[in-house]
């Protein structure tokens, strides 16, 4: 268990910046999820924490000690790779044993640890089998046992669930979180699946193009996205975006575009007027309504029935897709004209130039 700190980490491959000026702290016993689309630098970041890749510049500290030049083994990290990689020619027991072969522990101590780790993830009866004789979920558990047997400073997982079917992912997700809390280990989990990130992480670091866009608790990331990218990447169904201008009339702030206008209340009501702005609103906070000046005109494109609610996917006035949550069983023929409204206080405002959330002035 360790506290992991990244200081101004840069990684370039030739002319390509894989990771740029990354600062991050992972607390002891915390589960941090690195989330982002493929090629965003999250796996590179994890490999640098593991010691598999050397950063071009910057420092990595474990419990305040600089380990930047240490090998993965010296750092005492454990890693579960994509599709729960195991040595295919060794039994489950020997796979776990390989983690301790270079540890210098006595044979007796090693066997005791293997038995304990196998017990922890409930794989004792599988120890004699070869990886090819195990199911995806069982392989995942053996890979986990191989990782925890070392009692590592950090436990790193690189998309370990991505190759599994949906039902299995769901149960293994909970199992991993449960295990992490039980043995109280520092865990870093890389995924491109935002639901996995939201459900597992104590905190989530969202990455894009080698930069950390935002780091925070799942609630923070969902409710207070700091960039346009985070707002659009996190949340199902995804956030709706509308463009327009911010205008102040009679001391009230309005988002105005040719087909609609809405009063902005809440924290963003203190923003300065702007020519161009992107408004983001979650589908759950919109509702279908009568026509009116503050109602957004929409054309039905498709309807997805989820049982507890229906997602109405519409073409917005500027051709963008707008999703609105409707009561379960809601139907309308494709092409129907609808209107939707939302509370101005629920909207997020972003500057399209910087792609960041717009600054709120302290006093008007």
């Amino acid at each position: 268990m360790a506290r992991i700190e990244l200081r101004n980490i840069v990684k370039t491959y030739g002319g390509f910046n894989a990771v740029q000026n990354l600062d991050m702290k992972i607390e002891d016993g915390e589960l941090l999820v690195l989330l982002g689309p493929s090629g965003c630098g999250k796996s590179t970041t994890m490999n640098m924490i593991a010691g598999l890749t050397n950063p071009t510049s910057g420092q990595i500290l474990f419990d305040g000690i600089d380990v930047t030049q240490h090998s993965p083994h010296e750092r005492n990290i454990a890693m579960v790779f994509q599709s729960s990689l195991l040595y295919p020619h060794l039994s489950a027991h020997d796979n776990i044993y390989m983690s301790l072969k270079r540890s210098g522990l006595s044979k007796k101590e090693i066997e005791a640890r293997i038995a304990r780790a196998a017990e922890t993830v409930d794989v004792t009866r599988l120890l004699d089998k070869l990886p090819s004789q195990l199911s995806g979920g069982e392989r995942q558990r053996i890979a986990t046992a191989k990782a925890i047997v070392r009692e590592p400073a950090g436990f790193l997982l690189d998309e370990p669930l991505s190759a599994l079917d949906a039902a299995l992912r769901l149960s293994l997700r909970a199992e991993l979180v449960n295990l992490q809390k039980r043995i109280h280990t520092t865990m870093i989990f890389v995924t491109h699946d935002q639901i996995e990130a939201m459900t597992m992480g104590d905190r989530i670091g969202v990455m894009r193009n080698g930069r950390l866009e935002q780091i925070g608790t799942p609630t923070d990331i969902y409710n207070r996205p700091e960039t346009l990218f985070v707002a659009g990447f996190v949340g199902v169904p995804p956030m709706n975006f509308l463009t327009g201008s911010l205008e102040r009339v009679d001391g009230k702030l309005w988002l105005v575009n040719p087909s609609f206008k809405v009063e902005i209340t809440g924290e963003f009501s203190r923003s300065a007027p702007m020519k161009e702005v992107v408004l983001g609103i979650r589908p759950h906070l919109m509702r279908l309504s009568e026509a009116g000046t503050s109602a957004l005109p929409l054309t039905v494109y498709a309807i997805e029935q989820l049982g507890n609610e229906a997602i109405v996917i519409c073409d917005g006035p500027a051709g963008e897709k707008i999703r609105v949550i409707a009561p379960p069983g809601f139907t309308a023929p494709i092409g129907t004209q609808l209107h939707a409204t939302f509370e101005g206080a629920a909207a997020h405002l972003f500057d399209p130039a910087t792609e960041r959330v717009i600054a709120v002035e302290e006093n008007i």
Partner: protein
Amino acid sequence: MTARTKSIWLALAVAVALLWTFLPMYWTVKYAFMTKTEIARFPPMLYPHQPNLAAFFNVFGFDYTAYDGTVYKASGQAKQIILGLRNSLVVAVIVTAITTVVVVPLAYVFARLDFPLKGKLLAAILLSVSLPPVSTLIPFYTLYVQLGLTGTMTGLIIVTLTITIPIVAWMLIGFFRNLPPVELLARVDGFSRLYVLTRIIVPMARSGIMVAAVIAFLFSWNEYVYAQILVTGSRAVTLPAAMSGFLFQVPEPAQLAASLLLSLLPPFFIAFFLQKHIAEMNFA
């Protein structure tokens, strides 16, 4: 197409392939058990009516007396055949051993590591696979005359290695590339590169390496062009070169067929015992 007609076509295709492969072999093998007069008959006999082992005794240097009292004399080529059989085995085993020891690390490095000029070096290996042996025959011959390597097994082994190493390396590179990235696991577990190669990759790739060794053995065993030029008539003669001696004597088709059959046996047994591993290679 219904399943039924499909299976009929499949059976037909298999039959054609089997006939294509085995008919010429059968025709040769059957000669080995027939007498000269039987072979000369027209229309030809489809199978030996009175099979006998005369030719096998003859090629190993023994006279054979048939049931009717006819004596079949030992072949004049017998010494060469016995010597060739022994030399072919020695050469093939040494070539296989050296090829395997050289190629495993070579293929591993090309398949799993990055280094400058990798692409060009790989192209160089592939180029030597595509060179026909005839094109290097004369240079090798003049070189060997100067070095005094003609008529020696050492010389033949060196030449054969120039064929087996590139082609086996080429095969194994593909095989190693498809192994899972266990180097990552090994680095986290604290193992050195050498340990990874010798104790993890080699056991993992056992079937691939075994098949590669067999290919090396077969190339060496069947090698004829260089052997014909470099070792024919010397103490270092190999079986294919020794057998070709039959072509320059009074025709003895039964003895030629018998020695051909002998030369087929080692590859046949190797392929038979390794079929499990060959299937695991998944060449398809």
